[in-house]
């Protein structure tokens, strides 16, 4: 084969010319595909940048809560779903502890998400769906609830109670 090519230099030149064109077509094609394909992959697979947003909600004067009697507080919070900002109603059970500290529980039973309420007479949180009972500190007394009530992040600013994210056990692990 090699002998044959060296015997006909014209054919060898034509063959290497053909090779040059083929490599050129493949190379330029690959460059274009990469320049289109890689941004497309980033566009589809990378997480979008999320804009920082104020996530603390002002629940008003902390003095209005009395120690030992939980209060259900309703508030509006905004949630961002891609380009949509959704304003939705949410509630929290706010408990002032004996030491003056504040705990705010998420409004759903940790069993199947029913809305529980505070029973003043029994001094317990009662879930109407499957009778889960919680103490005032959120721990489970009885019933099918698998874990204590979820808590919101809280902080005090100039005597006002500020509510942050609801911390579910998953978020706590992460």
């Amino acid at each position: 084969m090699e002998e044959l090519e060296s015997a006909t230099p014209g054919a060898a030149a034509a063959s290497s010319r053909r090779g040059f064109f083929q490599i050129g077509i493949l190379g330029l094609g690959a460059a274009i595909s990469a320049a289109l394909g890689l941004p497309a992959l980033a566009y589809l697979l990378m997480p979008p940048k999320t804009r920082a947003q104020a996530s603390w909600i002002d629940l008003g004067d902390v003095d209005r809560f009395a120690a030992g009697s939980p209060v259900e507080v309703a508030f509006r919070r905004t949630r961002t779903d891609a380009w949509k900002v959704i304003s939705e109603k949410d509630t929290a059970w706010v408990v002032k502890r004996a030491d003056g500290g504040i705990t705010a529980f998420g409004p759903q039973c940790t069993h199947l998400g029913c809305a529980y309420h505070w029973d003043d007479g029994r001094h317990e949180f009662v879930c109407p769906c499957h009778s889960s009972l919680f103490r005032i500190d959120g721990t489970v007394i009885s019933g099918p609830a698998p874990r204590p009530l979820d808590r919101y992040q809280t902080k005090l600013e100039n005597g006002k109670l500020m509510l942050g994210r609801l911390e579910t056990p998953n978020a706590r692990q992460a």
Partner: protein
Amino acid sequence: MKRRMASARAWLEDRTGLPGAIEQFLDEKIPASSGWHQVFGSLALFLFLTQAFTGILLAFNYAPTPGEAYNSLRYILTEVTGGRLIRGLHHWGASMMITVVVLHMIQVFVFGAYKKPRETTWLLGVALLLLTLTYGLTGYLLPWDNRAYWGTVVTTKIAGSAPVVGQYMTRLLGAAKGVGVVTFARFYSVHVLLLPPVTMLLILAHVYLVRRHGVTPQPGDEALPKKPFYPVQVFKDTVAIFIAFAILFTLAVAAKVPLEQLADPTDTTYIPRPEWYFLFLFQTLKLFEGPLEVVGSTVLPGLAVLALAAVPFIDRGTMVKVTRRTVAISFVVLAGIGWSGLTAAAVMTTPREAVAQVDYSAPTDWIQLSPEEMAGIAYFREESCASCHYTGSSLGPDLTRTAIHKDAAWMIRHFRQPAAVRPGSTMPPVRLDDAQLNSLAAFLLKLTPENASALANAPDFAVRGALVYQQGHCAACHMVNGVGMKVGPALNGLSRRQTRSWVDEHFDNPQKLSPGSIMPPYRFSEADKRNLTAYLFALPE
């Protein structure tokens, strides 16, 4: 390895016939004179495929209803990774595709490649040109910003002015009661549902006819042996495609495609302009007034399309060498001069943007800041703080993280006597008064690593406007973004309530326009007034 490839190929050939078909396609014999002038057809096909690709990607993050459309496009531009690039490719790809389709037609026209038996190939080409323009027209509305809205108002009015069919055209475009949700739905459906399959069918038919009749030979080609399409012509096509793509990519990266404010049908000051390739039509329209307007808007363009379609039936002469086709070349030159003249006239008569525009294709976190914090940006820029304080600088600390552990009082002490608060600091003292230092500290307290670049985007007019607002103590009576007093009306949403000229005049003489107002007159300089009004109009509602 080679043997395995060969057997795989044989298997595929036996089951599908595909390798053979590709080979036959690539081995197509083309005339010896073929070369660089024939790359435009492949180039147009490539650009069509690229538009389809980027269009599908955009659709993955796009909500096709007015309002939502705008917000989702903003989301693509400001939050989705690579979103700006994909939109840039789609935007500039549209312009490039129209350019290339026209160049392809000019080449075919000049070389006389439309002559018998290729008349139907030419007709399909004219149809494809019209489809390409329709993509441009319908796609123009989809960002649903002011430009899109007002441009489409004009388009639908022109269609409605057509003799006899005008009112039906208006109904077909869903614009019987003005441009609205129905118009948007129609334009979107045409753009993504109707046009793509029709285009693909016509391209298939067009390419089939090219193959059926072969690439047009030039006089003298009969004597020369034909050559295969692959690899030399394919290589030339690929090089042309690569060059075009490199230009397109550069445009998408470097040339910003602005997004104006959300479409506002009540904005009476907006002056719509069409996309550059329609400017000549826009200018033609201006030559005809009154009852003759319909001539410029529909009759002439209609006749031009008919004339284009009739080309192969008017010119039935035999094929001559391209260098001898003086009449055809003169036609192209004259059309080119006419087109350029009209386009240049339209560009030159474009009024300079009288009012500053906010570019909504970039994050606009700054519009949430209070005027005091905005004025802080002005001092930050005037004092050239960024020449030492930038991310990664060794001269000064990164200020995006100061708010975490420093308060305003510390910052102000530090501005006055940097070394007294931080021994060894080489920072020169900031010579501003108390109110100005407060502003600067207020801005720095808002700065976080996440919003730093978004705040750096604050346009100069808004920063200057906020400075005027702050120095005029407007906050003593008015509220902006929840900060300030409620003696006078809150200024968010001012753009919905009043016009710019009303606001401008109101500064000079408040009582004339609002009898009983206790606002004192303000004698701002023209520039200050312009910046302040533009800033107030940019505020969120």
